[in-house]
């Protein structure tokens, strides 16, 4: 069967098998391999992309179901050579290690911040609770999303937002020396 899907702003038309999963269409037919798959049973969330502006697990969406709809993948986060604040946050707060869950996590984070620009820690944890990460223990993913929220707020209000004092997020984005060897960070 033939489908026409708008992927990252561009309409693409392809012949597909009716049973094909959307994650395979995006990866294998379009070569957008930033979207991963990890479990096939809608548990792990490495395959999260946006369908009509909503994060979905693309391993349990048929390509045919996306016919006539809009898909956005991780490859679309960077715009005009500028990383999305969520991407910057993941880098600055070490929110990724192996990087496999990262695209899905970032797509959820982007959606969350679009709908709640100032989510607290528990809101972020709830938002990503349908997705698994085996490397980070989630702590730095939470910090990454808070980093993005803080910097997007600063971008909206050019006043010194440092005073906004985002609770629970240590100011760790500046390089720190190894001399501070001993101490606790919460």
């Amino acid at each position, binding site marked *: 069967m033939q489908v026409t899907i708008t992927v990252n702003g561009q309409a693409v038309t392809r012949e597909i098998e009716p049973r094909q999963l959307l994650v395979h269409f995006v990866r294998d037919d379009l070569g957008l391999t930033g979207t*991963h798959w990890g479990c096939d049973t809608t548990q792990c969330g490495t395959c999260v992309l946006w369908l009509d502006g909503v994060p979905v697990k693309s391993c349990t969406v048929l390509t045919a179901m996306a016919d006539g709809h809009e898909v956005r993948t991780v490859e679309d986060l960077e715009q005009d050579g500028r990383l999305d604040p969520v991407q910057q946050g993941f880098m600055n707060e070490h929110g990724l290690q192996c*990087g496999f869950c990262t695209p899905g996590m970032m797509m959820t984070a982007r959606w969350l911040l679009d709908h709640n620009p100032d989510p607290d820690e528990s809101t972020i944890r709830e938002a990503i609770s349908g997705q698994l990460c085996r490397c980070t223990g989630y702590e730095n993913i939470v910090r990454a999303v808070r980093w993005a929220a803080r910097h997007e707020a600063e971008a909206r209000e050019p006043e010194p937002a440092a005073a906004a004092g985002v609770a629970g997020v240590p100011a760790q984005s500046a390089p720190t020396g190894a001399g501070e060897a001993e101490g606790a960070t919460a």
Partner: protein
Amino acid sequence: MTTTASPAESTGAQGAPGTTAQRMSPGGNPMGFGRMLRKEDARFLRGQGHYLDDITMPGMLHAAILRSPFAHARIRSIDTSEAEAHPNVRAVITGATLEGLKLAWMPTLSMDVQAVLATDKVRFQGQEVAFVVADDKYAARDALELIDVDYEELPPVVDARRALDPDAPVIRDDIEGKTDNHIFDWEAGDSVLTDQVFAAADVVVTQDLLYPRVHPAPMETCGSIASMDKVTGKLTVYSTTQAPHAHRTVYALVAGIPEHKIQIISPDIGGGFGGKVGIYPGYVLAVVGSIVTGKPVKWVEDRSENLMSTAFARDYHMKGEIAATRDGKITGLRVDVLADHGAFNGTAQPTKFPAGFFHIFTGSYDLQAAHCKVTGVYTNKAPGGVAYACSFRVTEAVYLVERMVDLLAGELGMDPAELRMKNLIRPEQFPYTTKTGWEYDSGDYPRALQKAMEIAGYDELRREQAEKRERGEYMGIGLSFFTEGVGAGPRKHMDILGLGMADGCELRVHPTGKAQLRLSVQTQGQGHETTFAQIVAHEVGIPPEDIEVIHGDTDNTPFGLGTYGSRSTPVSGAAAAVVSRRVRDKARLIAAAALECSPDDLEWEQGRWQVKGDPEKGKTIAEIAMLSHGNLELPEGVEGHLDASVVYDPPNLTYPFGAYICVVDVDPGTGQVKVRRFIALDDCGPRINPMIVEGQVHGGLADGVGMALMQAIAFDPDGNNLGGSFMDYLLPTALECPSWETGETVTPSPHHPLGVKGVGESATVGSPPAVVNAVMDALAPFGVKHADMPLTPAQVWRAIQGRPMRTDLAVT
């Protein structure tokens, strides 16, 4: 507020961290140790990582594996005719095909053999039975349905504790003369002395403990793309492997392909945790598939295949005994282990040690005698056993000793922190030789425990707990103190399949002063491309952004055994430091020639050799690099160019340690455990990149919470795997994990060139007993002393009722 000696003082390292103010590179990165954002993130953040399944090759075919639905069955016949007739199928391979090629069996990393495809019997559910190569992955899966296998079911051995019963079915009748399911007996320590110590003890506590079978479950499953070029005879394999060089040698030995014609490429890996160390049948089958079809063949397992057939971890049934004086001096420790190794003995550890490093089970305590005995048995379960960030079974050892110490504290009516403090090895006892022969390199244990307790507010927590108990609320506080032995290891003691555990490293400084570092180890998310660039920057003064770290390609890196057992920084990190120092020493000779002075007149300062007393005269490493490639007349014995290579043979293991404290709240009505706080104090020596180190700790803590509360792979009486998907095998999400609290002390290793000790597995090793101890502490008012992991709501509820269950078997 560093209070320990810096590595410069303790190891003689030059320009060590902490001794001078942080120097920054032109790119804003630390010229050495310090927080630096990761170089590898640029591609991962953009969805441009290059994982196995992202790779395609021209004409590539796709493969799938038919697996056994039974745990134990004889194969009467396999009919592949319908599958072969499928229009998109290019090859169907069975055990019979492989027998003709003498490839039906392959060696395991423990000197056993494993079936690549079953010929006579299937021995675990999920075992490989047939291999289909097709034009696309959907067709390959379709064709699996067309293969007809006639099985004769046999009684399985599911309960490891019955594996040695005289009437137990013999699983490995492929081994000539095999009449039982026994694999090995192994012991360490002094049994006679230990018996004497126990006989003289005031108090002895005994407890059966199960460390259940778990699976590392990296987000990316295992896979391989094999391409055999029939003209050149060259085999190229892209593979999800943590040990590409070791794999190359094994392929050569298994398939008889000359080793110089094999290239293993390990691309970006979506997590390994030990699950990508061994060689799986699918890897070998992809090679066979390519040989048979003449095309590149990709095989990628799905999640159920990953959970059911690739390396599991743990499965240790332990009987622990601890002896002490009435006033709380631990005198002896004894443990008898039944180790379930599954259907093939495929554990991955140094050859001498069939139980891995389990005999480090005396932990962090100074005692008089210890003895352990481990018996390995076959069962009708998947092979594996050493995986999942276990540091070669230090995980099981730490769990054993830390649970026994807590049980002893309960028996003595002592606070578990006080009991630990009383028995920890003292700083002045290092280097400390344990009762089972380990030589711990350095440590300050009491300080670490004290500091963790300060971060936690331990006394306040105990007060809060007492108040809550009066109100009928069940809060628990659990401690663990761990010592790991990592960085395997000295060649004379440690090898895998005869391959010594030393690692090569090469550094090439190009004429313009930019450098490439070639490593034998392979990152799976640990950030090697950043950390190792920092090591070189630290040693030779080249900015980390000007250093490319090359790894994961056997044609382009020196030989070494790979990344697992927290060995990359202890072994290859040392290699990178040593090779950098060789380059620096050579640069000194070249600089002296250029400056027309004696090398003795030069001093190393901030990436530059300069004349003592006349610092204006000097040469930067970049200037020296150009000189080394130019026409400067070099001193006798000095070759051109600025390169060096090394093979690093570690003199000893390194011994990171830490003190962990977990705070839980338990709902006795539902059995639900909530981890409220987790405090992790780690001492892994100096931290090259503290951001990465902390990230490693965070990940391991989540593993610990998962294993303690959620994760286990159990089997029903028929041998059906009950953890074969993420619906059944529960991993912690962001909701089960608290916000981790971390701390550190810094005790350098005296024998490592950088003083560093490795940290990749510390938290996975150290955290499970803290969680379990916390839950048991919470349940103490109910008289509960022990229940095996995972402490699911059902298990906790049953423990409160006085009947905790065995978590390796299906609940009946």
